[in-house]
């Protein structure tokens, strides 16, 4: 009898509250709601790889230092860093009185355990930390020197190691030693300003405040895959911040009076790659692009500003190479749109138009649905290249399962469209895509000795001015004879409710520490 009574009462109470729901669009002042486009798959620090997943994890797990919006170094769990003379030992001193979310003290032993756990091959982690950070810095191990000092050992001097170590998530030894890998994936015990309160897979993640600098008592991350639904939720006042607004909906949001779109020039570098591998050289057009003069000619063929205005609804920040403009060679300017010059240079390079008006045929490959309006951008680029006499065989592909494997095998092309994430904190970080001819991210197989022979000098230069000079020289080579057709830095679109004061960052990080009520 009692069992029946309780649900009935609950139903009545629920019905009463439901009738009020439609009008209750306002969020509570201590809660901020963020709408994400991609689902969250794990809270295992060693497995986190997507940007959305990392944005949530960033609030749960602290890091030793962090990077600010403009790439500045900000102490977090640690207050000082000493780098050994040979550049292979990074000793961090932790703040006193740190605690884990389970209440245990957070010591250097926890940090060393967390970093070594991520590297442990027995755990078979494949996330950003083991797969990218550790690979890039040549991580050896981490050791606790005492309660407050932890030393991270890397293989050799590396000027971007500091920035990459900021991406490692500090988690807590006692808790993780007691959990299986299955349990750890859903029950993070971190050191950050928020802890996980609930996770409804495919629906939402709720975080609760643990300590400063958390501004809100709760952050609700809602998974809203469809762009128009995210926009509707923002305008309705149910969500405070949404990422990946599509350009067509900017006007609707700005005109709503409830929210505004912030457009920032992101750090992601968009380009058309020239794959110069031997395999590609034997394909139609693959031989033509081996010649730097042809590649240079094509830089003039694409009207990037028009593409940005018409298809992305913004004036893009144009690229002069693979480094974000703040750290780029300041003497270089973006190639202008000059199809006449492109045709002249192609003639000079020995690729005149044939009787049918075609200079050469070439295949171009691109994934779909990954970048802002990518399919239309690719179609426009193809049209511009055809206008100067190329015959493009375009292959548009499903991103994850078809295009990604091609990229990872470095066999996309001969022309391929891509955007790769960059940073504002170091030019070398951006250049690391092409650190070696055989780098996994050198999708172009470019091997110009004027670039690769300077790499070691650049990395090991003690004098910052010397290092800057070498960087500029290398970037000039990349600009004139490089393997990228330079396009733009991808603009990122965020919708922000009028009740929130928050400024979007350029590096795709969504940090709620920086948000407050207006």
């Amino acid at each position, binding site marked *: 009898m009692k069992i029946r009574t309780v649900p009935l009462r609950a139903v009545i109470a629920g019905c009463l509250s439901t009738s009020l729901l439609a009008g209750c669009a306002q969020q509570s002042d201590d809660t901020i709601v963020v709408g994400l486009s991609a689902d969250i798959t794990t809270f295992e620090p060693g497995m986190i790889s997507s940007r959305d997943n990392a944005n949530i994890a960033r609030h749960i797990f602290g890091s030793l230092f962090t990077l600010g919006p403009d790439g500045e170094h900000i102490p977090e769990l640690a207050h000082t860093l000493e780098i050994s003379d040979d550049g292979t030992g990074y000793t961090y001193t932790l703040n006193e009185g740190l605690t884990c979310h389970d209440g245990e003290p957070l010591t250097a032993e926890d940090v060393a355990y967390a970093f070594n756990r991520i590297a442990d091959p027995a755990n078979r982690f494949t996330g950003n930390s083991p797969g990218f950070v550790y690979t890039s810095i040549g991580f050896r191990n981490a050791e606790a020197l005492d309660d407050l000092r932890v030393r991270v050992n890397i293989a050799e001097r590396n000027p971007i190691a500091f920035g990459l170590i900021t991406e490692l998530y500090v988690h807590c030894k006692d808790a993780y030693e007691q959990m299986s890998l*299955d349990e750890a994936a859903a029950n993070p015990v971190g050191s950050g300003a928020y802890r996980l309160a609930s996770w409804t897979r495919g629906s939402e993640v709720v975080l609760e405040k643990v300590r400063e600098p958390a501004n809100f008592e709760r952050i609700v991350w809602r998974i809203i895959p469809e762009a*128009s639904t995210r926009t509707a939720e923002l305008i309705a006042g149910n969500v405070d911040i949404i990422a990946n607004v599509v350009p067509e909906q900017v006007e609707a949001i700005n005109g709503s009076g409830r929210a505004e779109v912030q457009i920032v020039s992101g750090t992601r570098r968009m380009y058309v790659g020239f794959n110069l591998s031997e395999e590609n050289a034997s394909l139609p057009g693959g031989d033509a692009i081996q010649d730097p003069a042809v590649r240079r000619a094509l830089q003039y063929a694409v009207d990037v500003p028009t593409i940005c205005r018409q298809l992305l609804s913004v004036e893009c920040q144009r690229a002069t190479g693979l480094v974000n403009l703040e750290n780029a060679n300041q003497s270089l300017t973006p190639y202008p749109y000059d199809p006449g010059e492109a045709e002249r240079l192609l003639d000079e390079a020995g690729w005149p138009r044939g009787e049918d008006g075609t200079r050469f045929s070439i295949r171009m490959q691109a994934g779909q649905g990954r970048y802002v309006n990518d399919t239309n951008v690719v179609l426009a680029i193809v049209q511009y290249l055809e206008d100067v006499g190329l015959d493009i065989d375009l292959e548009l592909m499903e991103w994850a399962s078809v295009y990604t494997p091609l*990229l990872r095998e470095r066999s996309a092309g001969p022309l391929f469209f891509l955007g790769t994430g960059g940073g504002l904190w170091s030019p070398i970080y951006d250049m690391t895509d092409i650190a070696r001819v055989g780098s996994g991210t050198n999708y172009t197989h470019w091997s110009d000795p004027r670039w690769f022979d300077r790499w070691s000098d650049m990395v090991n230069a003690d004098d910052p001015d010397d290092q800057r000079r070498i960087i500029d020289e290398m970037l000039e080579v990349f600009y004139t004879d490089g393997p990228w057709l330079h396009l733009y830095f991808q603009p990122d679109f965020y919708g922000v409710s009028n009740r929130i004061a928050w400024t979007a960052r350029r590096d795709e990080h969504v940090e709620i520490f920086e948000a407050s009520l207006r």
Partner: protein
Amino acid sequence: MGAYIVRRLLQSVIVVIGVTLVSFLALQAGGDPTYLFVSERASAEEIEATRRALGFDRPLHEQYLSFVADLTRGDFGQSLSYRQPAMEIVLEALPATIELTIFSMILALLLAIPLGVLAAINRGTAWDGSITTMSMLGQSIPSFWMGIMMILFFGLYIRLFPISGHVAFLSPLLAGDIGTAFSNLPRTLYHLVLPGIAVGTYSLARNTRLVRSSLLEVLEQDYVRTARSKGLPELRVLVHHALRNAWLPVVTIVGLEFGFLLGGVVVVETVFSYPGIGRLLFAAINQRDIPLVQAGVILLASIFILLNLVVDLVYVRLDPRVKLTGGRG
């Protein structure tokens, strides 16, 4: 009947194994999934190590046989992206989709039967024409477009229903938390209205036409004429004589449709940010999370087979002419 059911269940095992084989091969046809699980900066050695760790270095037949062997022990494997038992994740998403499917089917049936009957008994009139036209329209409108339009109108402009999301009813109920389940129920239904209509419109339109045509056919039969000539009231003729036989094709379609909807509501689930099994499997396919896809496919195939069996059994109850022999022919 018992022997028939046992025989059908045994046949089902073969079907499920066939389904797993086809889905396994389809996922492998897209190339080596290892690349989706390594960083873009991974070296060749790291890629190879990951390939070994994930088991993709073994020959295809070995991978499949090992999967089937694990299956016989009830082990569906670990999801590659979630790093948790694959079947656990699928079962977590299933209740939301069942809620949506049942809601939309009830909605569709409650309206389809009266509309179909109304059209049939008023054949050739404006009623019939209007209902038939609306049915054709309902079958023609893409569910995602309808979903977006409903979000804009009912969610954003008149703010009558929530734009997206889900409040669980079945999950807490199945977990034994009856209080939470029933306190959630009003909000569950409230969140189901728009996606339920988006999913159910196609079924409503098709079932309306089916009820109409089926009833029209039955109304022409001799026994209906006989019933009328005995002087029975038209309502009694309709309900007791005509509708009972008109049910047969409707039951078949509705039973199978439930199975289709379980796996096929992915677009609507995406539009309404509804955390169901369709969206989960779609993401898993994109990620080439083979264990998760296999677990989902096996579960959906099993439900579909079970529904087929139930439809057959219901058929026997509705039509005494049908016998369950289970043999050839």
